[in-house]
């Protein structure tokens, strides 16, 4: 099969996966969801990394370094800020034993 056809198949399937996963996210978490997905489209940084080795000339290199920097801001900033927000969500109920165990595990 043509690689392009395969790629488009991946695209369509990913779209359905995206709809299925995201539809189940409650309103409560929509802001972290937005900043989290925002971080994920920072995946474009790969484009910059892939092209940099094959680029030539100052202009191209400058454009790509800016692109890599932009993509990195998008990825790192996005994931960090999402982590910060999610860390604030606390339940009124005491944590379940499993959660306490997981927290302890993380601490060690």
């Amino acid at each position, binding site marked *: 099969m043509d690689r392009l056809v395969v790629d488009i198949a991946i695209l369509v399937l990913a779209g359905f996966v995206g709809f299925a996963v995201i539809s189940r996210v409650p309103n409560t978490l929509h802001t972290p969801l937005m900043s989290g997905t925002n*971080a994920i*489209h920072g995946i474009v940084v790969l484009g910059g990394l892939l092209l940099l080795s094959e680029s030539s000339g100052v202009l191209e290199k400058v454009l790509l370094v800016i*692109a890599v920097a932009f993509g990195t801001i998008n*990825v790192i900033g996005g*994931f960090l800020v999402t982590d910060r927000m999610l860390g604030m969500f606390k339940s009124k109920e005491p944590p379940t034993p499993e959660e306490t165990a997981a927290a302890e595990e993380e601490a060690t």
Partner: protein
Amino acid sequence: MIAGIFLQSTDFIDAAYIVAFGLMIYGMSGLTGPRTAVRGNKIAAVGMAVAVAATLLRHGEFHGSGTVVLIVVGLLIGTAVGVPAARNVKMTAMPQMVALFNGVGGGAVALIAWVEYRHGFVPAHHPPATGGWPLRAEGFELFGAIIGSISFWGSNIAFGKLQEILPGRPIKLPGQAVINVALLVVAVAVAVVLASGTHSELLFIVGILGVSAVLGNMVVLPIGGADMPVVISLLNAFTGLSAAATGLALSNPVMIVAGMIVGASGTILTDQMAKAMNRSVPAIVAGGFGGAVGAPVSSAGETEGTVRSTSAQDVAIQLSYARHVVIAPGYGLAVAQAQHAVRELERALEAKGVEVKYAIHPVAGRMPGHMNVLLAEADVPYDLLREMDDINPEFPRTDVTLVIGANDVTNPAARNEPGSPIYGMPILEVDRSSAVIVLKRSMASGFAGIDNPLFYDDKTSLLFGDAKASVSEVTAEVQAL
């Protein structure tokens, strides 16, 4: 040596990419609940790290002099800017932060497309047999360039408006909608010309990047503050789609999957936001708030009743002797930085045995779910936050509803007056509770400029003043009782 060759093989890198997007999807699915979300986000971040590491392993990645240095410089600049920004941003400023991160993502897509264009294209169906420029599909590249550029400029304007560098009110030109459509037609026409064989970098810069930049500005400038959540969400979807297009052009599966998932999620959120505001996405994009709604007349006419003003002491008594109290916060609460004061009030009331819940409208705040984050920051447990559909049946059993800095989302005209511009918009049905107390700065109307009959209702009393000061005053009175 052999291990090194294996790690650089296409098969290994493709496998790593599959692991990467698997982790991202699994991580995202953790966002379905507050308990699993922190871990989910971390897993998605690990997926991203795997994707970047695999890309750097690629054979020939460091081909060409100085490439390592350039990659490191790019990554370092990005980290140096991104980390402090993410660490220090205030929760109230989250919408503009997301807009900014979104904008740089779109900008990266546009820049990458530009470099790819400079190298010319290999037709999609005839990939080069050996090595060479990994380009295939010119159409995807041009699509990515247009959407990425729109997203970059649009997000920057959205940032400027939310940060109040630019005026928040709609800025409009006569015939704006026609101009926007014309610009889009020009960009698409140029893309067709370029894709059909004409190679001109100047045409690419002016006709694709330039026209899209103007379009991005023109689309967002006329949009007012109230519609910003929808716009940010839409631009987020755009950047995702443009990243997926870049992935198609480079035949990179992880970019296709990640970009498309963002495209899908952004589309869902945009749609949900627009529904919660009773607006259609095309109407928002076509012109600022008010453009589609028409003149902000009080269509009802009979809302000229008198309002009943109350005092902090009376409010405290009313709340203390209630059994069920619901707090309906709006963006006014965040503007007044009253989240912590509200949490204090809630605690004081709970100490008196009053059951307190929060009613969260989907568009409370400046982006989807913003109010939840603001209240979470003030240590309000998420169990107390109720979504609109869950809390509405509870209002008839509620003794007192405290509306703080919310207006349009509580307007019963949306339910009762077919002539009202917001008729049909889902609202918090606070008027069904036994008594309503509205904290307001003044009698000015909400974003939509629509009068709110709730204020003239017999069971409504208003406490005028700054939300934070009023809430603190009420808390002090409650504690003194």
